[in-house]
């Protein structure tokens, strides 16, 4: 990543001043003082809750019993884990989450690459196009989700209005039906409907993020490389494949990692668009449902830890096999 990783230079050690301590010792004390507020707030709000989450996942605890909850009691049970993992739909849940994360991430990276290639060289109006491309990422997720929901609305949405005037299809409820019946030259098959929409939404919403990183990396590639390849007679496709893309491997590895982690855990997008219905249930929305639908705190805590563990396993696999030096 474009980041200046210079080792922090130490100041020259001055002779011991009047205070009796060296500048270095005083600096060390000062450093702890400067760090303390941030570290205390963050660790207090992350590490402690995490430990508490483990405790919660080992209890039978309902939302209404919250008042009587004693964090120090030692009655433990693994029932929450067997409830969550033993659920009939657990594997479907994992598969949907994983598929959503992989497809959403890939789509956003591909769109981001395409957008960066488009805006790479100057053309009239380039500045405006670049600004517009950032819009889906900048706009609050709540606004973006309801914008899509309204556009895809079966009664008054623009997408259905156009589909009907063009193809005379019936009203398609994109976000509430599980699959489309497709009749292509007598060949009938179903395509996932709501699931496709959430993947498209994720790709649309996060491609500007990938775009910014890829464009920044592209503009750092020395122009001579491209020129030299041109002189050697390489066509545009060859220059893209053999000159530009190899330079982007590092940024792709990092982007895939970041976007994958965020998409794998994402809650807002799916909760707002489909609420997890019609074949779009993912782990984070299911956690919310355990908490408020079933008011079962123990199960929600257990599933959230399962989510964290699956994520950690996937990351270990990623670092082990996919990327060695690029993301280090």
């Amino acid at each position, binding site marked *: *990543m474009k*980041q200046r990783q210079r080792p*922090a230079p*130490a*100041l020259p050690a001055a002779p011991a001043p009047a205070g009796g301590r060296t500048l270095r010792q*005083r600096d*060390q004390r*000062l*450093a702890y003082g*400067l*760090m303390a*507020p*941030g*570290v205390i*707030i*963050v*660790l207090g*709000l*992350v590490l402690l809750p*995490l430990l508490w*989450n483990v405790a*919660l996942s080992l209890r039978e605890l309902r939302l209404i019993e919250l008042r009587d909850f004693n964090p120090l009691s030692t009655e433990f049970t693994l029932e929450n884990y067997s409830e969550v993992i033993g659920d009939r739909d657990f594997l479907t849940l994992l598969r949907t989450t994983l598929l959503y994360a992989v497809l959403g991430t890939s789509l956003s990276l591909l769109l981001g690459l*395409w957008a960066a290639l*488009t805006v790479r060289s100057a053309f009239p109006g380039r500045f405006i*196009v670049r*600004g*517009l491309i*950032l*819009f889906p990422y*900048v706009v*609050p*997720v*709540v*606004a973006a989700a*309801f*914008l899509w929901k309204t*556009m895809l*609305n079966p*009664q*008054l949405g*623009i997408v259905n*209005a156009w589909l009907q005037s063009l193809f005379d299809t019936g009203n398609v409820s994109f976000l509430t039906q599980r699959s489309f019946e497709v009749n292509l030259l007598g060949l009938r098959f179903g395509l996932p409907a709501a699931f496709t929409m959430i993947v498209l939404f994720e790709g649309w919403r996060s491609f500007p993020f990938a775009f*910014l*990183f890829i464009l920044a990396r592209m503009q750092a590639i020395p122009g001579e490389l491209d020129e030299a390849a041109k002189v050697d*007679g*390489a*066509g*545009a496709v*060859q220059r893209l494949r*053999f000159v530009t893309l190899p330079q982007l491997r590092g940024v792709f590895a990092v982007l895939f990692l*970041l976007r994958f*982690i965020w998409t794998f*855990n994402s809650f*807002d997008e799916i909760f*707002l668009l489909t609420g997890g219905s019609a074949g779009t249930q993912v782990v984070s929305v299911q956690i919310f449902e355990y908490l408020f639908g079933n008011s079962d*705190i123990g199960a929600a*805590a257990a599933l959230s*830890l399962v*989510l*964290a563990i699956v994520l950690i396993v996937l990351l270990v696999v990623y670092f082990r096999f996919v990327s060695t030096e690029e993301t280090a």
Partner: protein
Amino acid sequence: MSATEAGSSRNRGTEYWVLGVLKWGSVAFFVTITAFPLLYMVSLSFKDISEVLRNPGDFFPSWAEISSLATYREVLRPVEDGGRGFLRLLRNSAVVAVATVVVTVGVGTLAAYAAARLQFFGKRTINTAMVLVYLFPAIVMAIPLFVLFSAIGLRDSLFGLMVVYLAQTIPVALYMLRSYFQSVPIEVEESALIDGCSRLGLIARVVLPLAAPALVAVGLYVFMIAWNEFLYALLFLTQSQELWTLPLGLQQLDNQEIPKTVLMAGAVIISLPIIIIFFVAERFLVEGLTAGSVKG
């Protein structure tokens, strides 16, 4: 990389032409998928709902519809007068976001300076821990924080919400400001120290003024994160309507009784401040983002 045919000028001409078509096709594609939804959101927010139901394909509002501002009036009017109370939500969101910015930038600057310039034991561990926190799923922390804040009575309060936002924004601020401080030449600071300036005096008189643009960029980012946040607002504040932030208030408008045009007016109101901030400070923000990488 064989290039047997390349070099002939006719091939070059074809390539130039094909690339031109591809390029303008791509530009058209990206303008469509970004500008069209934006246009649709703004247009629909002015429309009369019965007009939309009668003819969904025609989404441009008439002048009469625009000048009546009926949907915006409904969204902004207080709940007691039959409106949706968005003025109050605007205030709540602004309070939480500004408080988060002030605390995060303050705390983050001190920590980032220490992480960039001072040597101390445990520095690497703290830096790694902060990156991990930044990547850690919010939903995993949501349950214990929900339980904890319910127990200590912080759940239905804007203060509680702000405290939770700090945990998400301080790592971002620390990371971005640290890479900024590292990119500033150290010589300036050295000469101030030699001239007898104390470390804290140095931070106040030399470092902060130099870092002002970076502080503004980080502050705007943190503002955007806090302004857009939905999950914790949903968990903590759903039961106290007078405390709702904009994202939560907008989500509560998504039901059968409320016209979609009103929903879109709400969406425009929540987006407008963010879009303005972004386009006023775009250069700053893009540089900050690609240097520090921000969660989204």
